[in-house]
């Protein structure tokens, strides 16, 4: 009985020291970690809508107004479709004429070397300047589609393309 108390106490002591150390370290890094996540998001918003200078949130974490001075010149929205092996998160800018101003994949778990190529400029930059009707894979919509699928990664390419199209259409009014 006494032994079991002694062991518990020692374990408790070590856990206490460790918890104290980590609490201190957490305090020390937390702000930086939060700052990193925020600045990454801000950076992504700027790249998908380079003409705008501020992005007030209209729907927390999913939709932002793209403002230039006092004028609203478009919308930035986030989509998160299912890819080949998990969720893909992307942000996309849409101007008032209904053209895509840019698209960036923020996170994904697609296969390295195949689906992971959705993060390359070659794929992402295709969306820029396209109208909603053109946002379709060439192989899915031979007439209007303007997006080349990544070779051997059709599922990932299609997931992003469809989500961007659906997301843009859902913004409504800006056809």
């Amino acid at each position: 009985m006494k032994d079991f108390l002694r062991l518990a106490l020692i374990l408790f002591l070590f856990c206490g020291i460790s918890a104290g150390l980590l609490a201190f370290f957490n305090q020390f890094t937390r702000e930086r970690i939060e700052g990193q996540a925020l600045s990454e998001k801000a950076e992504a918003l700027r790249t998908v809508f380079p003409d705008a200078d501020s992005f007030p949130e209209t729907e927390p974490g999913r939709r932002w107004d793209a403002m230039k001075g006092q004028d609203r010149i478009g919308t930035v929205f986030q989509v998160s479709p299912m890819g080949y092996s998990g969720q893909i998160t992307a942000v996309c800018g849409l101007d008032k004429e209904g053209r895509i101003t840019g698209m960036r994949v923020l996170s994904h778990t697609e296969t390295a070397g195949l689906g992971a190529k959705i993060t390359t400029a070659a794929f992402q930059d295709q969306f820029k300047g396209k109208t909603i009707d053109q946002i379709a894979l060439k192989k899915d919509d031979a007439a209007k589609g303007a997006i080349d699928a990544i070779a051997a990664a059709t599922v990932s390419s299609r997931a992003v393309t469809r989500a961007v199209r659906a997301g843009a259409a859902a913004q409504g009014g800006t056809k």
Partner: protein
Amino acid sequence: MKLTQELTKGFFKENPILIIMLGLCATLACSTSATDALGMGAAFTFVMIGSNVVISSIRKLVPNQIRIPLYIVVISTFVTIIDYSMKAWAPALSRSLGVFVPLIVVNCIVMGRAEAFAGKNGVLASLMDGIGMSVGFTAVITLIGSIREILGNGTVFGFQVMPSVYQPILIFILPPGAFLVLGFFMAAHKRITNRKGGAA
């Protein structure tokens, strides 16, 4: 000199990956590119050396019955520190290593060295052991990562090294490639050791 031996045994003779063959999960999963592999090696080095030193210095205070939970507390403290640090100062690397940084907690090399070495030896010897194991681990995982990245993507540390006509052999950056490359490394290691043995 005994201390030098503790240091150098991890490089080749008792290499943690090729001979002890522990921590293969991290080795296989984090060697898709040279950068990831080196990052994993760095995180591992911090945890390995830190936990070896702390565990050897508290070894006389640790009751035998609860040594394993205590070791895990020490190891996970170091892992959490490196995990937070990477998130704060190297977010891109942290994202590409993902869950494998927290998983160093259950990396069998760290646990194995704590149990087999640091719990029984002095601080200095454990420090040497930790450095040796870390160098051995980091060197092998980075080499595997470089080879997989060159063959599977035509780059190393993100720089194009293969001519643009080279068609990357994708399988090398997919999971089977990790097993293939690791297998060749083990075979090569075995051959070198056998040769040495034959000559002696």
